């Protein structure tokens, strides 16, 4: 079998891997690095369970090849906590009960963390009335921006509350 050497930087640690080029980033994380927090849902970019943050932007790790990410900074759910303390978004999801079964949660949280950065950068969304003006992060904006993450338990209301809580900078 033809293989490629690639060094992936995940949660600040470098990993040298020899991979079949067909290996998706998702499979590299789960099967080669043992980082099983990132979940495989649909494996076709529709559910968002595999969402990770690459160079500050959220992507579907199922629809990209690991060999395409040499030199990138990859952050998974395992990389969000800081010295044993939950990331504020993780804490908010727990506080607001933003989950039921929890399978989609790592993807939801990675997505939500990146969402706040996108909003802080002034990015518009489909819910933005005038795309020329940086929008206020209303619940409609949060829902639209999270549409790439499906929760089959339908914890959406509490997911939106958790994200709004962190966006507003504190506990509610």
């Amino acid at each position, binding site marked *: 079998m033809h293989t490629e050497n690639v060094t992936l930087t995940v949660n600040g640690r470098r990993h040298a891997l020899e991979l079949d080029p067909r290996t998706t980033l998702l499979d590299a994380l789960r099967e080669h690095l043992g980082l099983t927090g990132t979940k495989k849902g649909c494996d076709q970019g529709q559910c968002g369970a595999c969402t990770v943050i690459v160079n500050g932007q959220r992507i579907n790790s199922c629809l990209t090849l690991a060999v395409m990410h040499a030199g990138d900074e990859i952050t998974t759910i395992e990389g969000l906590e800081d010295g044993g303390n939950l990331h504020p978004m993780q804490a908010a999801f727990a506080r607001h009960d933003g989950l039921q079964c929890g399978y989609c949660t790592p993807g939801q949280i990675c997505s939500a963390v990146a969402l706040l950065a996108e909003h802080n950068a*002034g990015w518009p969304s489909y819910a933005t009335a005038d795309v020329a003006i940086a929008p206020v992060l209303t619940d409609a904006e949060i829902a639209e921006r999270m549409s790439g993450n499906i929760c089959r338990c339908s914890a959406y209301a509490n997911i939106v509350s958790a994200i709004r809580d962190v966006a507003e900078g504190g506990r509610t």
Partner: protein
Amino acid sequence: MKPFRYERASSVASACALATEPTTKFVAGGTNLLDLMKLQIETPTHLVDIGPLPLADIEETAEGGLRIGARVTNSVLAADMRVRRRYPVLSQAILAGASTQLRNKATTGGNLLQRTRCAYFYDTTKPCNKRMPGSGCAALEGLNRMNAVIGVSNDCIAAHGSDMAVAMAALDARVETVAADGAIRTIPIDTLYRPPGNTPHIETVLAPGELIQSVLLPPPPPGRQLYRKVRDRASFAFALVSAAVVVAREGDGVSAARVAFGGISYKPWRSREAEAALVGAPATRASFDAAGRAALRNAHGYGYNDFKIPLARRTLRAVLADATGVI
């Protein structure tokens, strides 16, 4: 996924030279190609990753427009302040498509070259002339609710899925390509796509090894720009019908108009017929209805998608009314 050889392009010229075999594919974001490779609908033997190429900038052009590098992601393009201020219909259209995760990977060139989402193209147990030339079209007599109603043939009624391209069609975008021999040419977006005819597997006029390197937007046309998308759910769904318009009023009349539809054809469907009906007409719902009738005059439903014809007319009327402030 079938095995393939993976290579990173070191220059535009080397990328084009590597890709002259029809079984070689360029990959940029990969969001559509890798999905199709998993299903073995796409089975390239070589992938040329154009990620290292310097095609990720948005630059002003001398004529007052923008040059968008082929690797500029959909997210970056939609968020660019020059696009948001001067080409808001393009931002709106991009943001109407897919999810943020996908838009963060999907590129300008890849979006234009995405394959159809026709259910029978994806279902490898069914005939499809696009996937397997000569096997027939299962959509013709099948569940064709999402399929095209204009410009297609009895060999293929697949619709193009892009929102971005619909706005680009209304904005008279041109695609700049580099061929394997280094020759550069510009192609109006309206002629990039080949009608399906009896060769629906040949989708564009691009030759093997020809790479889209940028999309050129001319200066914005006069008038208000607006994109309207009609779909089965509020977000993250392909269009049943969409419409991009740029429309200017002078007094009570329409002085300039651009109209393009999504979801109804094999390509973003620019309607010069609707534009001709609008220019010089009073800005009224009756005029907008007449433009819709002109646009869909040659449309033909295939059963489950018959509704798209009146829906496209009504969508055009609604978006024109919004854009012109007509109640």
